[in-house]
């Protein structure tokens, strides 16, 4: 797989850095005006080094990557500074040189693998192209493509190569993209949110793959992500970006443990970590909003949102200060950054849910089978759950585990199978929401993942919430208006937002409108389907605080669906872990997180990269969740279970959901004491510095 050395690469003195970005400005031309998307960005990546760029949406992470590959959008241009890859400036290359540069020196993998491959060409042809660019004949290129897919641990490369992208899963496609990116043995591999669209278990696999291949090919990596934990896991050094500027950079460990820029400090405080829960206190937030491009001309770009800012910060643009331990920070007061005052007071008095009372929602034997093309897809199978007033039930599981279907059944959007029982405060609910009365409809509401598509773009905030008040709460006139203002304030919005339409609001504000709408009818149960997944970390923190406050005040029961276990842990009182539509584990949140865990829960937990660097990574789930149309025999998890029993019991008999401790239910053949022993001894081994790799 070696390519003939190009004359540029065998230049007499090989530069010691793979990527050298210095004082880079990128401007986008919008309506005839240049707007700076990047301002004075400088960083470098050494040979075989892995550098992470982290920041919220709109901070310029992706623009940086595109500037490096010289693939800026048509209205973008590099207005100052320079990019050097292996000592060469892509901006100065002619067409031929640029093509060769892209073919040999640099590669890129990005967020949605399903869109990164051509939908109408077989995967094999697309992979082979990488070799054909280097002049390899078609047949040989295809043979090499097969070899390459083997390298990224694809079990059946022949079949995969003959497939079209839509026939493969996201994880598989992303592995193909990584294989393609590394095929030319590039000096620099750019990964732009490579795992954001994937499940945690798949993400873990893909990240492992990247780490091992990076070692093997000795490639330098520019890793871009909004996920702080992923960056912490994957990178040697980190740069934190905010509003087009690199505000802080340094060794990953230093940045995450001991940040020296108020923005980094604030960002890290927004993430629930170390088992933080809602009754421990509110999450900190970052007040205010991201400035628009070009809005801040002089002074510190973060000054308006910073509690440490003084007059100096508004007048004098801070340079990159040396903040010790290899860190640099663009803050006049970087020494005081760790003592940044909180934006949201921590103290909180939350009423804990009433565990003794009657359940608000009672599910008994709830199943949902979809019949399509002669196949029976069992999306939800025999779920029994009780939800108490003011309690949050976290629903956890990979995509395809039945979380959303269960929520839809609860809301009456999907009709469950015959014999399923759903009761609201003791009285049975009709399976279809059309047959439920107004009081019942009012009692159950939902907040969706994407407020953009959940709110009508043509209606004003006032219209959206008023309509809900009229339809659900039956209010009108004066009373409606009063309640409207009350609700708007309770979601921390202001009267001036009322005439605005959703497209005039930021993502966080839109989600607040959605929450206000859901609360309009004073619901008893609120389903939150990934309510913060589409939001930035700092916005997520504010929404989580809001949800916790509203719940405590209104005694609402939440069904909280999220793939982010940290967020689920923060908000949930009890947790149900779903796999192929079955509840595998159910119990109080702390018990589920502290263990002993069901092997599936254990795998989910070890898949999640953590900012705290806890030594969890000992279990890896192989492969993907099987299709619910062909559930495995016996225990449905046995095909992927890392702790499957040798005696064949798991393959033949499905275990029941058994209460192993008070309130803690497991669906596993392995006795709970054995699970506890297995899980704690390995922890001890890890702490003793002898990691067992299973």
């Amino acid at each position, binding site marked *: 797989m070696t390519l003939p050395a190009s004359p540029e690469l065998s230049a007499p003195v090989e530069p010691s850095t793979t990527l050298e970005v210095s004082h880079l400005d990128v401007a986008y031309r919008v309506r005839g005006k240049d707007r700076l998307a990047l301002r004075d960005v400088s960083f470098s990546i050494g040979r075989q080094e892995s550098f992470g760029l982290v920041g919220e949406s709109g901070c310029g992470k992706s623009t940086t990557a595109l500037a490096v590959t010289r*693939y800026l959008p048509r209205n973008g241009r590099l207005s100052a500074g320079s990019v050097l890859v292996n000592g060469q400036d892509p901006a100065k290359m002619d067409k031929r040189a640029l*093509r060769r540069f892209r073919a040999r020196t640099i590669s890129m993998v*990005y967020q949605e693998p399903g869109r*990164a491959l051509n*939908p*109408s060409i077989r995967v094999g042809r697309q992979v082979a*192209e990488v070799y054909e660019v280097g002049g390899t004949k078609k047949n040989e290129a295809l043979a090499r493509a097969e070899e390459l897919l083997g390298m990224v641990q694809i079990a059946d490369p022949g079949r995969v190569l003959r*497939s079209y992208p*839509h026939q493969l899963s996201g994880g598989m496609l992303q592995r193909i993209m990584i294989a393609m990116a590394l095929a030319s043995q590039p000096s620099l591999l750019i990964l732009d949110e490579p795992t954001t669209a994937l499940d945690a278990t798949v993400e873990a696999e893909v990240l492992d793959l990247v780490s091992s291949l990076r070692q093997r090919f000795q490639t330098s990596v520019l890793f871009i992500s909004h996920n702080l934990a992923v960056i912490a896991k994957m990178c040697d050094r980190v740069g934190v970006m905010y509003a087009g500027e690199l505000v802080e950079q340094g060794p990953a460990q230093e940045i995450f443990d001991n940040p020296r820029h108020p923005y980094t400090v604030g960002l890290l405080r927004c993430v629930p970590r170390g088992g933080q829960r809602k009754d421990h206190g509110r999450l900190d937030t970052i007040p205010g909003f991201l400035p628009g491009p070009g809005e801040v001309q002089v002074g510190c770009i973060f000054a308006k949102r910073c509690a440490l800012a003084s007059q100096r910060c508004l007048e004098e643009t801070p340079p990159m200060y040396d903040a010790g331990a290899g860190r640099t920070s663009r803050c006049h007061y970087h020494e005081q950054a760790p003592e940044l005052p909180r934006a949201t007071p921590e103290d909180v008095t939350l009423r804990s849910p009433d565990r003794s009372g009657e359940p608000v929602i009672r599910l008994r034997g709830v199943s949902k089978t979809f019949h399509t093309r002669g196949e029976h897809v069992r999306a939800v199978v025999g779920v029994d759950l009780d939800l108490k007033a003011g309690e949050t039930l976290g629903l956890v599981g990979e995509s395809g585990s039945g979380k959303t279907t269960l929520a839809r059944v609860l809301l009456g959007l999907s009709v469950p199978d015959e014999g399923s029982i759903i009761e609201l405060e003791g009285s049975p609910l009709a399976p279809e929401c059309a047959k439920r009365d107004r009081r019942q409809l009012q009692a159950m509401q939902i907040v969706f993942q994407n407020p953009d598509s959940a709110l009508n773009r043509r209606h004003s905030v006032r219209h959206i919430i008023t309509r809900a008040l009229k339809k659900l709460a039956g209010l009108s006139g004066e009373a409606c208006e009063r309640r409207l203002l009350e609700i708007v304030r309770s979601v921390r919005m202001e009267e001036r937002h009322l005439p605005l339409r959703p497209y005039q609001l930021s993502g966080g504000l839109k989600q607040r409108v959605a929450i206000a709408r859901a609360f309009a009818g004073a619901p008893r149960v609120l389903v939150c389907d990934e309510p913060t997944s589409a939001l930035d970390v700092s916005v997520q923190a504010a929404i989580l605080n809001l949800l916790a406050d509203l719940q405590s005040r209104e005694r609402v029961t939440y069904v909280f669906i999220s793939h982010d276990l940290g967020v689920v842990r923060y908000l949930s009182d009890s947790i149900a872990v779903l796999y192929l539509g079955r509840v595998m584990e159910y119990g109080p949140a702390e018990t589920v997180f502290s263990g002993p865990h069901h092997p599936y829960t254990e795998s989910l937990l070890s898949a999640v990269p953590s900012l705290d660097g806890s030594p969890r990574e000992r279990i890896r789930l192989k492969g993907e969740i099987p299709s619910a149309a062909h559930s495995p025999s016996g225990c449905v998890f046995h095909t992927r279970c890392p702790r499957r029993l040798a005696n064949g019991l798991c393959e033949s008999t499905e275990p029941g959901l058994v209460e192993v401790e008070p309130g803690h239910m497991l669906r596993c053949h392995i006795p709970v004491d054995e699970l506890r022993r297995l899980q704690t001894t390995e922890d001890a081994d890890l702490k003793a510095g002898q990691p067992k790799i299973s």
Partner: protein
Amino acid sequence: MPLYVLKRVGLALVTLVLLSLIIFFAGQVLPGNAGRAILGPFASQQAVIALDHKLGVDRPLIVQYWSWATGILRGNLGMSYQQQAPVSSFIFPYIGRSLKLAAFAFVIVVPLSILGGIIAALNRGRAVDRILSTTSLSLSTVPEFVSGVVLIVVFALGFKVLPVSANAPPGSSFITQLKYLILPAIPLVFILFGYIARMARAGTIEALDSDYVRTATLKGLPRWVVIRRHVLRNSLLPTITVIATQTGYLIGGLVVVEKLFVYPGIGTLIINAANDKDFPTLEAGVLFIGMVYLAATLIADVIYTVLNPRIRLGKAE
């Protein structure tokens, strides 16, 4: 895949039956009756009634429809009131001439408009794009009878380079026939060019902005390979559907152009039949246009399916 095609054909047949119903009953709504139309205003009422009876138009409508529809299945399109001959005995040469004109316009417009759309997309925002987009849009808003008249005045009467009439003298060579068809084809080309080119441009721009084109470009593939292999196939998929619906329009639009260029095609036949209340001829002509429309849509759907693996193979799992 074959199942899909069968299903589509079945659907097309159902549509055809519905179409025949609409045509037949719409024909009944037109004022005047057949006997009077044939015999003229001065014939006696008795004679009209007698003729109506002979033609069978005094039977209940549903019976008339049944005998008409089953007749068509047997190849009997009915008797023309005007020509006093079976419709099937004279309609085919008209159809042939219309198809020739339509095919000629089609062969010119499809490659030209797709090419125009792609060129505009590749030069997005530049002068070439602006000129192509504006011109094609303006041309497609000009009705064919206006552009047709202008063309006749300029090229046939002014420069005298092309004939006024569309119908070549009997026995002319293929080339001469085409020469006669140039002028009538151009108004049709004008109208269709705008639609198809706009669609091709939009599709190409979408593909150019896609992630997979970025992947291909960053592989270091030469630009023309990226365009040929990764852009075109995806960008032209939506265009195919547009071409199909526009083909239907093309046939319908013939009515005006044929009249203007005195071309004895199906359009002229339909207009004359409508004037003469010659329902069987009218119905046969409209049914034919409907069939062309359906066939075009069907073919487009099949091509779309063949080119789009997502539909051809369905989703795995």
